[in-house]
Every structure is written in structure tokens, then in C-alpha cells.
């Protein structure tokens, strides 16, 4: 009877191929998803918030973020443990001057984890790795900026 159905519906013999294709697609999707998740977990972020009443120029490493409005912020991401060198100064043309420069050592995002291993003395030794937010923020107030021309 089955053989008869297969003859009647010749599309069935092609199904294993389609199934393989679907499975392969699903595996690729899951692989990409896992890569994405791991990439997110390994990100270090640096945020600069403009809490002045003027426009700011923000330089983080080689990247520039110009004309940041009051009460707005910019964020730069980097993979892995990163030292962000941040330079901030009032955007030119406002009749006010001042600049500041700081470095931030940011560990990538990591959730708290713990584990136990069998110790040399026969007992269990348990350790806990602290969580890391993976994010550092620098809020720029007027007094953060030295009153000197850049």
C-alpha cells in the first residue's frame, strides 16, 4: 500500500532531500544565533553622557562623535577587554571652552558564574566569578571640563 502511495505521489521520494535542507538550515541558524549571543557576551561598552547645556565633541579612540546635544549620549562598543581613551571638549563656536580626557578599562559583559572542583585535600573547592556589566559611563558635567581651550 505504501509503495502504491509512493508511486501515486512521486513527490515523497524527494522529501528526504528537503528535510536535509531544512535541518541544515536550522543548524546554520542555530550556529549563527550562538555566535551572535557569544559576540554580545564579549562586548565592552563605553557611554558618554552630555550633562552640560552646550554641545560637546566626543572622541573615543579613533572614532569621533560630534555635536552631541545637551542631555544626549553616545556609546561605543568593542569586543573583549578594552581600554577606552575618551576625549571630550565643547564643540567650537559656542563661546565657551573646556576639555577633559580620561581612560576607562572596561571588562566585557559577563554573567555571574560559579563552579566547584575536587580539591587536592579531597574536598570540594567552589569559586564564584563576579558578573561584569560590560559597560562604563562617563557623565560630563560643566565642572568636568577644564576651562581651557583644547
Amino acid at each position, binding site marked *: 500500500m505504501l509503495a502504491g502511495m509512493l508511486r501515486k505521489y512521486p513527490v515523497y521520494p524527494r522529501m528526504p532531500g528537503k528535510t536535509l535542507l531544512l535541518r541544515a538550515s536550522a543548524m546554520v541558524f542555530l550556529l549563527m544565533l550562538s555566535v551572535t549571543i557569544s559576540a554580545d557576551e564579549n562586548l565592552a561598552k563605553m557611554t558618554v553622557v552630555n550633562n552640560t547645556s552646550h*554641545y560637546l*565633541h566626543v*572622541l573615543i579612540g579613533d*572614532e*569621533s*562623535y*560630534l*555635536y*552631541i*546635544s545637551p542631555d*544626549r*549620549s*553616545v556609546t561605543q562598543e568593542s569586543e573583549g577587554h578594552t581600554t577606552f581613551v575618551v*576625549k571630550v*571638549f565643547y*564643540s*567650537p*563656536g*559656542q*563661546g565657551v*571652552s573646556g*576639555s577633559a580626557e580620561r581612560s576607562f578599562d572596561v571588562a566585557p559583559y559577563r554573567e555571574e558564574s560559579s563552579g566547584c572542583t575536587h580539591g587536592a585535600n579531597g574536598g570540594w573547592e567552589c569559586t564564584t566569578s563576579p558578573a561584569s556589566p560590560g559597560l562604563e559611563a562617563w557623565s560630563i558635567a560643566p565642572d568636568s571640563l577644564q576651562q581651557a*581651550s*583644547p
Partner: protein
Amino acid sequence: MFMLCRTKSYFFKLLVCFILFVASAPFQAAGAERKYSVGLDGGIFLPTGTWKEHPFASRVDQFQKDYVIRFDIEARYWQRLGLGIDFGFIALDAGDWERYAAEQGDAITASASIFYTGIVFKPYLWFDENNLLKLNLGFNIFASSGEEAFGRFTYDYDFLGTDVGFLFGIEYNYILNENIAIALKPAVVLIPTGLEYADGDPDAITGFPLTAGIRFLF
């Protein structure tokens, strides 16, 4: 050859056919005597719209008119259509912004420009023995960039970048002799998301490149 190209279904074969098609222009009986031409033009770029205004300094244009240089290669396939590759360089004057900053006590030096390249379709609107009028419908990649020096800091304009845009215009050719024509090319540039500040919405870069030049016919 055109029929041959149409029968091929693979992309790379189409690409090969396109290249052959371009190269075969002089041998096609399309009715026009001159198949290839090269144009070199220069002129002025007039920026328009809000993108040229400074983000906070009212009445100050951060980018002002400056010169533009254009170069294009055209192959004329049919009597009323040419296809070309277009290159151009648009300089943007930041003098107004520099002067304003100086008035506020800040010494800066700034420069900005736009380089573009792309394909251009040239439908022929009208022509006779000495005159030729055609449209320029260009689809381009625009690479906008700028740099500013302020005190000990030098930084790139992060709000400029590389985007897709259009360069549409009209081209008039006055044919002097078999090999040379004079060209007038008023056009309009539109880069829909050409300018975007780190904390703002994108703005379109628009302007008018008005150029004149010379065209060599082969």
C-alpha cells in the same frame, strides 16, 4: 550578440555579456556615427537644503558652494541611448564656519568634500548635425568626508559617510567637429541619507553641480 546574451541565464555570463556589449558598441549598426565619448567638466557646486546649515550656529552655513570636477566615459548603443560611467569630485567650502568660530574665539580649520562614482543612463532627447541634448540619469555611490582641526584635536566629520544617491541632469553638447564637442551639464544631486549626526536623524544632501567642459568623440 544581443540575442546570445539574452539566452544566458547565469549571472556571471550576463556580466561577461555586458562587458562584451559595451566593447561592441562601435560595431553595432545603431545609426549614430560616434560610439564612444569622454567628457571632462568643471564648474561650481551649489548646496541647497538644511544639511548645509550648522547644527547650532544659526545663519551660518557649515558647507558652502565650491568647485566640482566631473569625468565620464559614455558608450552610445542605440540612436537614442548612451550608457556611461561617471566620476566626480565636489569640494565644499567651510570658510563661513571657520570665520564664525574665530569670532567666538575658537581657531579651527575645516575641509570637506564628496567623491562619487556610478553608472549613468543618457537618453537622447534631441540631436542634429551640431547639437545634442540628452538626459543624465546617474545612480552613484557618494563618499562624503570632512576633517576639522581645533587646538590639539583633529577629528573626522562622523556625520558624513558613504551612501547611495542620484545625480540627475541635462547635458547639452555643441559639436565643434568630428572629435570635439563643448558640453554644458546642469544637474541636481540627491543623497537621501547623506548626513547623520551621532544623536540625530539623517538629512538629505542636495545641491546643484553646474558644469561646462569638453567632450572627446571617438
